[in-house]
């Protein structure tokens, strides 16, 4: 039963995640550049993307070329040192960026897509559809990633990016689905959804044209989170040797470094290079996520009072 209530005269921000008022590309640009977290994270992301696209083209060295400088620390010829077999670590890292990035992004995207479809459909339709989809999500949620990966790797004849990607997608979609489902459940009872129903819209149209646009901020945040998860998960799985170890990626670098006891031998550069890359990429994506949070939820924004000095003066004046 709706009770009458009056418009509040004090501006009060909404409590839930809202889609920011982006209607033109210029709005988007302004929002991105004004928020420092987003620009910082975006900078990192762009950096790695450029490295992935142009790095292997610019570099002349072959990452798999053996050389005689075995386990040599960073020097002028080998900027990040060499591996056990004399391969240039720097080249490997640059080439590996492409593989890791593509794998991470694609699996993140696929997992998010699945979670959007499952979450939105279950949340809106309710009833037995929701019960079945929830059951699915919950089952996949509790599946332990690592043992599952090992078991799958044992059974699947093919070891490579597809395996790793497959496992990541399977373990990565359910959390987002649950979040989106609960958000859709609360959206469902919003009046504009009822109004759309009263206008005569079909369910599909309501889900994807009325409800989904309101959840884009959430989906974007979830996408980034899933990509971070994907990159980390895949790196970890490749480290275990479940990926294609002949391929060069950050994870396989870890694999070889681990296999050849790099730490014991003191070759810190071999581990540090891919490790830093993963960490920095993850941090960059996380920063973008925080920034999106701030944009979408006005309460988190630290409204910098423009004339701080004037404020102090005004307060002083009152005190006197």
């Amino acid at each position, binding site marked *: *039963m*709706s*009770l*009458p*209530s*009056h*418009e509040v005269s004090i501006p009060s921000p909404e409590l839930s995640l*809202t*889609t920011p*008022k982006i*209607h033109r590309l210029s709005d988007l640009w302004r929002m991105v550049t004004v928020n420092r977290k987003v620009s910082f994270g975006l900078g990192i992301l762009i950096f790695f993307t450029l490295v992935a696209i142009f790095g292997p083209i610019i570099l002349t060295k072959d990452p798999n070329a053996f050389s005689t400088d075995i386990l040599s620390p960073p020097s002028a010829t080998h900027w990040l040192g060499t591996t056990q077999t004399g391969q240039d670590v720097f080249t490997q890292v640059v080439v590996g960026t492409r593989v890791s990035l593509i794998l991470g992004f694609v699996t993140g995207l696929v997992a998010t897509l699945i979670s959007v479809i499952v979450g939105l459909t279950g949340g809106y339709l309710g009833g037995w559809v929701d019960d079945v989809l929830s059951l699915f999500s919950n089952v996949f949620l509790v599946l332990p990633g690592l043992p599952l990966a090992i078991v799958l790797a044992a059974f699947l004849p093919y070891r490579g990016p597809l395996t790793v990607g497959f496992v990541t997608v399977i373990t990565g979609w359910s959390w987002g689905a649950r979040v989106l489902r609960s958000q859709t459940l609360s959206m469902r009872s*919003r*009046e*504009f959804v*009822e*109004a*759309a*129903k*009263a*206008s*005569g*819209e*079909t369910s599909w149209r309501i889900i994807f044209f*009325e409800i989904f*646009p*309101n959840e884009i901020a959430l989906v974007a945040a979830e996408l980034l989170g899933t990509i971070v998860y994907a990159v980390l998960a895949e790196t970890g799985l490749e480290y275990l040797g479940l990926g294609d170890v002949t391929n060069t990626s950050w994870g396989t670098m870890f694999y070889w470094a681990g296999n050849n006891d790099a730490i014991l031998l003191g070759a810190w550069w071999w581990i540090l290079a891919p490790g830093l890359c993963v960490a920095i990429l993850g941090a960059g994506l996380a920063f973008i996520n925080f920034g999106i949070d701030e944009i979408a939820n006005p309460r988190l924004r630290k409204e910098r009072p423009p004339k701080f000095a004037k404020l102090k003066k005004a307060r002083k004046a009152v005190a006197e």
Partner: protein
Amino acid sequence: MNSNNGTLPDALAANGGTTNAILEAEHLRKYFPIRQLTLFGKQLAVHAVEDNSLALYPGRALALVGESGSGKTTMARMLARLYEPTAGTIKFRGEPVNTRSSANLRTYRRHVQIVFQDPFSSLNPVHDVRYHLSRPLRLHGHVRNAADERAQILALLNRVSLSPAEQFISKYPHQLSGGQRQRVAIARALAARPEVLLADEPVSMLDVSIRLDMLNLLLRLKDEEQLALLFITHDIASARYFAEDTLVMYAGQTVEGGPSEEVIQQPKHPYTQLLISAAPDPDRPSLNERDKTVAARGEIPSLITPPTGCRFHPRCPHAMPVCRERFPGRTDLGGGHWTNCFLYGDGGTQPKNITITNDAKQNTLETP
């Protein structure tokens, strides 16, 4: 609306206008089951609406007045087919509405539209005004091409006095004030070209000084297009201003109904009297004269385990034993005015001729 066959009583028909009801609700009930964890035990439900009948006529407004828990919003939602009634029939132009098929539902929606209470949440924040208005136009096949659509949208905006219309087409809801949003909501409802407009507390969340303008807009639309309006409100004064007929509900049951002026100036049911005396009335002398105020006792009952019989009986100063046993039939008081109250009879058209006063001092029945 004392109608079994959908025609107006003679007194009202004499005032002109068509005499056949365009939308009728007959003995509607709505129970909302409560999901419980226990396998055994009775299924609990919220008894939101209990046996409510009403009829809407073209060019006339009916006000549905009640407090929270009265079931008025549920009635509106049922008439808009957003909820399915648990029992009872809804008839459009005399034909029962069959909502099994979605095509039928779509057709029904073309004829019956609803405007919601909260202008801030009834518009989708990510879509502009053009989108909001073009959807119903397209859904109900009123447009031929893009140019026609734009022309029709501009015409709609002008009809709800949002002018100059070109300025409003590309605005988003957050760029509009509360009153403007509500007008867009009304335009959206009108885009379907309905014959019936259900307005669920359309002005409660608007600033006081613009409420009358909005009500006058709805009245103008009603006259121009002979719309049948259902006006849901908790404010009995605006019901009097706006609607020709008023129906009062309490805790899901109908209590009294008839021409607005009659019901409000000569309220018969004790609850209606309570409601009118509790409403703020600047014309009445100040609060210190408490003699005139009806002593309010008790609170609105729970709808999960409502009182038996007439749900007002725990609070009624004139309750009788029969009030607890069953709900009274509709007693016709003449001139379209009716009430459900054992004080006046138990159905039929021979009301008992009594006057009740609910003064705090004298809680007595006076029989002339």
